[in-house]
């Protein structure tokens, strides 16, 4: 069984040591997502607290699959809540719970690291990378991306699709099993 899934089973049984272990492994990721999206270390700290309290108080919310993907989504959604509360930001819908039984499977996802993803991201043409990062970390809709970049809406859609496909393919190549 996946070690992280085993840890989550222990968290369900109220095992604080297992919870600490999860925190030690993933707080940099949760903090990093929050900081990247909000730019404020203190708010990023608060979100990190909130996310891990959710892990502790509602471990059943994690329904299998990739823990790292799940906890990242929770962090991003919390950061989006803060962004929305700061102003009239268009509300985008981020699918939170769908399983990832696709080609880039859970095991591969668990083995990815920041450097590998940054390399894959930086290999994308700038016109594809920029809207993807704006959408993911900026929490804006594709219409807003088009408006902010002065790019036709159809072009934004095409670039995001092409960029995500390339990213997924590059991340799936040669990942150690």
């Amino acid at each position: 069984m996946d070690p992280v899934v085993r840890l989550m089973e222990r968290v369900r049984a109220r095992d604080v040591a297992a919870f600490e272990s999860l925190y030690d492994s993933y707080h940099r990721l949760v903090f990093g997502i929050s900081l990247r999206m909000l730019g404020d270390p203190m708010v990023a700290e608060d979100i990190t607290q909130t996310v891990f309290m959710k892990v502790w108080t509602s471990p059943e919310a994690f329904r299998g699959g990739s823990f790292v993907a799940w906890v990242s989504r929770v962090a991003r959604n919390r950061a989006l809540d803060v962004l929305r509360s700061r102003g009239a930001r268009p509300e985008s819908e981020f699918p939170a719970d769908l399983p990832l039984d696709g080609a880039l499977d859970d095991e591969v996802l668990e083995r990815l690291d920041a450097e590998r993803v940054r390399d894959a991201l930086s290999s994308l043409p700038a016109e594809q990378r920029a809207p993807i990062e704006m959408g993911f970390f900026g929490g804006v809709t594709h219409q807003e991306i088009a408006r902010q970049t002065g790019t036709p809406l159809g072009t934004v859609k095409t670039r995001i699709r092409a960029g995500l496909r390339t990213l997924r393919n590059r991340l799936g190549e040669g990942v150690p099993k």
Partner: protein
Amino acid sequence: MNDATSREHMMELVALYALGVLPREEAALVTAFIANDSAAAEEYRALRAGADALAFSAEEPVDSGRSARMKERLLARVAHEAAARGTTARRRGGTTPGWLLGTGLAAAAALVFSVVTVVQDVSLRGDLAQAQQRAASLTAQLAEGERVGQHDRQMVTDLVASDARRYDVAQGAVVVRGDRLYFALSKLPGLPKGKVYQAWIMPKGAKAVQPSVTFVPNADGIAVVAVSSDAAKLGAVALSVEPEGGSKAPTSRPTFVRPLS
């Protein structure tokens, strides 16, 4: 917009949905599209994996002082929560009235119904702008709260899951995942005025069907409907056209009867 162009446009929206940059009203439209199109579901899963991986690029080293401070705060909250939980559990023992649980279940059922309504009412192949308008009018229902979102996502999760069992019927498929059973239909004939479609369930070993939900497909004959949350006990399902409000027993020839075996 011809069919091919429209479909390509929908596939682009699938990518936007995977990245999480689609406004809620369009997300509802894409949700229904994914549920009815296996290629779209596959594309979604692949692109969603790429989108999820983006989070890794944000991982930051956290200085040891901050890291220790955050952990200390967190563990203090954990200890406090654990103590409060123990107190609450002792207070609750044996005092929760049964009617309160029933009220909660009824509310949950109403929320599920609202989600089904949203999904079945969006158009997949018709005029996109018109479909978006109709989906937008239902956005308020989607915004009802986190529980609605969870049910909505649960349905999509079930419909696209690789471990879901699919039973083909002429109009689409009956989809079973775990205890949940759905009709995902896309070729339903239009209904006469005053009529609705009604789902029927037949428990294993039973000799007669029992009434289930009624629904009206959209203008394109598409409907995605949650029929049962007790699928393991069912031996067959069926569909027929009935008067508005539904019937206690079928009054017309079934549109389909599908054994679940």
